[in-house]
């Protein structure tokens, strides 16, 4: 092993207080970026959870619908035109809307977000069931709720009752982990029950899930629907997901805020590492000048500084990753879980390395100006 790494590591560990301060700066920066980006990913997943769990080949939504939660209505005439289009096998209506949930226990009212679709089609039914069944939702007044919201809804499990928009509702199925990013609980019901809870006339719908015939080309069917029904948007699940994410993350400014936080983390980290590397380099200026005097190339000295930066990056990132792992565990069951994917971890490591090595530039600029003759005067 070259002495470059030895020199770099010993320079780094020589002043332990400075080293600890550097690590704290890097860890703070990386954890901040990790949490912001984890929130971004978590939020991005939550806003598309219905689209992700629907068995759809295509979504027919109102023109310019921003997301699954867009309450703009489609007329029955649009639905009537869809089955006749070549390649369309099934058209499953979806209704959504806010409604008031009256708790039986204390009469308090809580807003809920009702999701209704044809249960027989099975295109958008509750998932992660921990009690009851989808079959049970076919019974009178049956609804499915998530157990996370039991306290909020004043229910305790199967057969608990409440009123939605003045009509009876009975818990027939319980899910786990279907949480809404708006904090308003989702309530699943059969299409007709949901329509009644929302107060929607039978001629109105929010979206249609389209399934194409086996062997049909989805893109071609999408094009045909769009041509025949021009007053709607026809989207693949991926397109609908992108549109929803784009609206919630960037249309609302939430994503920009998360990115701004992440950028702040990068700036703080870069400044801290740059400052400590620069001061470390200044402390070792005579040593670098000695290296230069004995004929060492600039490249050798840069390698010492860059190795210092890399060591900072690796150690800081390892600590930050451990903290990130704990944060993921803690928030896993929260309203907005922080999602850290392997890609995010890889990207963050790359960012940490770039941040630390980039921070070495100021130190390198200082070293470039070293005059070896300075060792003669001391």
């Amino acid at each position: 092993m070259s002495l470059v790494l030895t020199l770099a590591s010993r320079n780094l560990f020589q002043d332990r207080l400075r080293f600890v301060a550097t690590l704290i700066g890097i860890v703070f920066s990386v954890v901040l970026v990790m949490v912001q980006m984890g929130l971004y990913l978590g939020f991005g997943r939550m806003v598309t959870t219905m689209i992700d769990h629907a068995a759809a080949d295509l979504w027919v939504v109102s023109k310019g619908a921003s997301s699954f939660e867009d309450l703009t209505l489609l007329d029955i005439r649009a639905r009537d035109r869809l089955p006749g289009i070549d390649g369309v096998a099934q058209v499953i209506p979806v209704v959504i809307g806010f409604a008031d949930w009256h708790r039986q226990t204390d009469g308090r009212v809580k807003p809920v977000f009702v999701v209704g679709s044809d249960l027989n089609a099975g295109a958008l039914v509750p998932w992660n069931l921990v009690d009851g069944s989808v079959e049970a939702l076919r019974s009178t007044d049956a609804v499915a709720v998530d157990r996370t919201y039991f306290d909020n809804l004043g229910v305790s499990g199967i057969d608990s009752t409440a009123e939605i928009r003045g009509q009876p509702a009975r818990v027939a199925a319980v899910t786990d982990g279907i949480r809404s990013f708006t904090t308003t609980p989702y309530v699943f019901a059969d299409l007709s029950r949901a329509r009644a809870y929302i107060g929607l006339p039978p001629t109105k719908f929010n979206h249609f899930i389209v399934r194409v015939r086996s062997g049909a080309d989805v893109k071609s069917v999408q094009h045909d629907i769009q041509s025949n029904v021009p007053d709607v948007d026809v989207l693949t699940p991926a397109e609908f997901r992108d549109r929803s994410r784009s609206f919630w993350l960037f249309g609302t400014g939430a994503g920009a805020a998360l990115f701004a936080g992440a950028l702040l983390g990068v700036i703080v980290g870069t400044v801290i590492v740059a400052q400590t590397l620069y001061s470390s380099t200044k402390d070792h200026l005579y040593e670098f000048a000695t290296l230069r005097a004995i004929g060492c190339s600039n490249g050798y000295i840069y390698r010492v500084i860059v190795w210092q930066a890399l060591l900072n990056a690796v150690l800081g990132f390892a600590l930050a990753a451990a903290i990130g792992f704990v944060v993921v565990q803690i928030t896993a069951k929260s309203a907005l879980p922080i999602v850290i994917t392997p890609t995010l971890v890889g990207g963050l490591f790359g960012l940490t390395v770039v941040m630390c090595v980039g921070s070495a530039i100021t130190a390198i600029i200082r070293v470039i100006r070293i005059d070896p003759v300075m060792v003669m005067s001391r």
Partner: protein
Amino acid sequence: MILPIIEARNVSKVLGAGAGQVRAVKNLDLSLAGGKLIVLMGPSGSGKTTLLSLLGCMLTPTEGTVFVCGHSTEGAGPEQLAKIRRQHIGFVFQSFHLFPTLTAEENVRLALDVRGERRRRAQTKSREVLERFGLAHKVAAFPRDLSGGEQQRVAIARAVVAEPSAILADEPTAALDGANGQAIMTILASAARQHGRAVLVVTHDTRLLEFADRILYIEDGALTHEERTGGNVYRMRA
């Protein structure tokens, strides 16, 4: 005819700018041959260190040319000068300039490491040189655990380990007591006479003159006279 290892031809050096400008070295000619220990003496501010820096390619002359092993340093950039130093010159400094975070062996090995020598070979060479200088038991010691004399011996080991053609030493005994100073000069004299290197020692200490093959006197940036072994005195300037 034996070519000099380092040769200065009509070299001048102006330091500073404006009103503070000083002509530190004036139209100086000098050649250092292998196998000789040359002592450069002169009062403070006479230009000794500037001359050493010019000969060691740490400074470039304002006028004239310095040749190292036949290579002209004229027009050479910092990286080229560093390469010349790396290939041909070993330095010994008054304050040793050892790396406090490296052991004695690592400090010596550094001179080989910057030359790209492989670790195992560099380690063996470094230990051999330290052994030769009576520091076999100190290879793993850090500079803070070494006496001044031991530190300077490590510094000389660093200067000679890469087998340079010339060794330039700036007041190498100034921070040492008499006995250690004598020991250091013995090592430097041996580097010259047994290993054929050109060794130039800048000093104030007249006790070291006994080790010299040539003694050069400098004053106001110009060599005034020279003494050679046997007591011959040559006047160089009026």
